[in-house]
């Protein structure tokens, strides 16, 4: 059975796409799946650094597409997990150097051997975006609870639907429960009702993220991290497990009602 290509996109830069690809990919591989991460941010590569694999780059995605190497030569195996690989982006080329058809061909080839192909989409909605979504069956849209990220996410969702990519789920990143309780941040429910796509996960704000990228070790390796747990739950939901998403704590006391939102409701 062929695997699934998932593009992780957002429109807005800096909301957590690369962090999501690294951690979600690692979480899926930890469950025994074979996973390849593809950095489609040509010219501004980051997935290699976040994964701690920057010293192992020999070939990159443009080399594959231009026929200078075989796919296997560009694939870098993760240091800790055998079933996890990375295909890095090129750093000195740009996004117009490949076409959507090239990316689709690569992804279609990769799903013959991998359970999951996760494509790290660049920010924006131009050629880089069009390339990154070309081979995808599913999309995960990452947003944060602030106005520009939400607006850009909405635009991206519209573009995905126009490109007939209808399997779209939302990840809300950098959520600050204290601010939500005070009324100083839009709640999970607010954001879901604005964007009107099903929610697949909520990731809290935390200093741990910078620390983990400093080290080049994705947070899901850290057993005590709440962010690690959140990404593992998203991996579970992707695999079909029915894991409820806890709703925000509302004003009105510490023991606010905890409604369980079924992730695929």
């Amino acid at each position, binding site marked *: 059975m062929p695997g699934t290509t998932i593009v992780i996109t957002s429109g807005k830069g800096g909301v957590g796409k690369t962090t999501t690809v690294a951690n979600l990919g690692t979480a899926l591989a930890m469950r025994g799946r074979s996973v390849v991460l593809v950095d489609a941010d040509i010219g501004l590569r980051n997935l290699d650094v976040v994964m701690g694999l920057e010293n192992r780059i020999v070939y990159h995605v443009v080399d594959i597409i231009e026929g200078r190497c075989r796919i296997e030569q560009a694939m870098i195996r993760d240091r800790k997990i055998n079933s996890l690989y990375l295909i890095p982006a090129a750093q000195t080329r740009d996004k117009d150097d490949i076409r959507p058809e090239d990316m689709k061909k690569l992804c279609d080839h990769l799903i013959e051997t991998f359970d999951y192909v996760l494509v790290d989409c660049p920010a924006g909605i131009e050629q880089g975006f069009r390339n990154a979504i070309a081979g995808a069956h599913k999309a995960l849209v990452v947003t944060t609870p602030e106005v520009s990220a939400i*607006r850009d996410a909405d635009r991206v969702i519209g573009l995905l639907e126009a490109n007939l990519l209808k399997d779209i789920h939302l990840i809300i990143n950098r959520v600050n429960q204290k601010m939500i309780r005070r*009324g100083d941040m839009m*709640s999970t429910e607010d954001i879901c009702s604005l964007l009107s796509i099903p929610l697949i996960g909520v990731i809290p704000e935390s200093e741990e993220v910078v620390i983990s990228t400093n080290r080049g070790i994705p947070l899901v390796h850290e057993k005590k991290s709440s962010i690690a747990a959140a990404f593992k739950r998203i991996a579970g939901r992707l695999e079909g497990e029915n894991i409820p998403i806890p709703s925000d704590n509302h004003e009105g006391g510490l023991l606010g009602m905890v409604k369980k939102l079924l992730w695929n409701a």
Partner: protein
Amino acid sequence: MLEAIKRFFSDKKSGKIARDRMQIVLLHDRLSIEPEVMEKIKNEIIAVLSKYMEIDHQTISVRVEQGKDYAALVSNVHVKRVFRHGQTQPSNAQ
């Protein structure tokens, strides 16, 4: 100055303000329909109306109208003649 005082005493939390603003912003963004799509919408409206009445194809207008907190699709159609009940004309091929 008055605005600052109003904000200081305002009950409305910024999270709610953000949500209300976003509702309007997204409504406007989603209604920015491309010209080709507007043309298709117009032609399909002509096709439907033409089953029930004779309309002026030349002067029909279909446009998006946006105000501070609303958005609407507004159409103006000059009707020349309404067909009798049950006498719908066959619609043109689309």
